[in-house]
């Protein structure tokens, strides 16, 4: 029993830019009749692209956490800080709400994003019909919070530019900044390449239109 009809079942595809519905024709590279954006039934190669980006960001998440994020040189000597030691420093210097914000934005969000996207992609691959609503909400959350991971990149940028007192104190960015920036960009691309419509597709029953193009 089908409770409702999707655009794909009706032989239609919707333009991802302007929402115009167009008739689906097999094998043709169609463009939207209204805004001329390329039309796809589903995002092309969604599952394999998302997996590739998830794996790449999971690998880069390791050096992002282990390598030094910044080096502080002052009269008191040189100090190397990783992501976590930066959070610990904020905590001890009395600003624990800020420490919590930085910890959340730069450790919890990227990690949860990688795990959430891996779960979403795996469940879509199994054509799971369970927890549809929860997965749809989780995807929306991942898309919404992803950008806040850039926080630490901006903090480093400003620290490097501001603490530039030759002979007294200078701050330099460390290699972890590059790895961390790459993690943020790759997880954002991963979230974009995932097609949330795949979550709901199994409801349409066993179909011969399972090609994701």
């Amino acid at each position, binding site marked *: 029993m089908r409770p409702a009809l999707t655009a794909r079942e009706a032989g239609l595809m*919707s333009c991802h830019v302007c929402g115009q519905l167009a008739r689906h024709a097999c094998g043709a590279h169609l463009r939207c009749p209204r805004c*001329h954006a390329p039309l796809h039934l589903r995002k092309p190669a969604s599952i394999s692209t998302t997996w590739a980006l998830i794996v790449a960001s999971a690998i880069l998440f390791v050096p992002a956490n282990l390598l030094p994020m910044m080096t502080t040189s002052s009269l008191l000597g040189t100090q190397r800080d990783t992501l976590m030691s930066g959070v610990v420093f*904020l905590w001890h210097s009395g600003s624990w709400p800020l420490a919590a914000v930085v910890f959340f934005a730069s450790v919890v969000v990227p990690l949860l994003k990688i795990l959430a996207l891996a779960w979403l992609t795996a469940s879509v691959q199994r054509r799971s019909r369970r927890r549809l609503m929860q997965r749809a909400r989780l995807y929306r959350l991942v898309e919404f919070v992803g950008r806040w991971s850039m926080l630490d990149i901006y903090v*480093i940028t400003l620290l490097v530019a*501001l603490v530039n007192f030759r002979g007294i104190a200078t701050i330099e960015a460390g290699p972890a900044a590059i790895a961390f920036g790459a993690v943020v960009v790759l997880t954002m691309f991963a979230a974009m390449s995932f097609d*949330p419509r795949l979550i709901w597709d199994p409801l349409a029953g066993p179909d011969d239109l399972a090609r994701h193009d």
Partner: protein
Amino acid sequence: MSLTLPAQTLACHECDLLQTEPALAPGQTARCVRCGAFLARNPPDSLDRTLALTLTAAILYVIANAWPLVGLEMQGRRVEVTLIGAVQALWSEGMTPVAALVFGTALLFPLLELAMILVVLIPLRLGRVSPRMAPFFRLVRSVQPWGMVEVFLLGMLVSLVKLSHMATVLLGPAFWAMAALILTVTLAGRAFDTRLLWQAPPAGAGA
């Protein structure tokens, strides 16, 4: 100029369900009946309000970039940085990928987004609708997720707290302009009814 747009069939962009878009009274929002995704909004006076807010944002953007954002005073010496100055400092240190990332997300993409919205909306307000503006709007959509000025502002606050124990922290005019910029861009986004772009302009709008 608050119009009630006609009902029509559309597919949810998140779950692909076909549904009739209800006729929306000004201020109302439509959500997908199955997955709850945002479908459309009919904000009152959409075109005029979006244009006014986007023009304000463009002015604030210039101030936020031309004046120093923050400064630091330490043992009689003073350092002030602008946004582009901070990017340059990172670049000259050999952190080119990170500098490029900051340049794109905090400076270039927000600028592109503002410029493209104006390129699309000004002709629309003047009653000149042309299919040539569709690619510009597509560009707005693809650039939008990468503009992160609000995250940059929070990053600025975090770095100032980190430095407040070792030096005197100064807030520049660009800091306040950037805070106002985030507010106006958010309001402009809420006032914008994207459906206006794809429909023939109602009689009497502009022209």
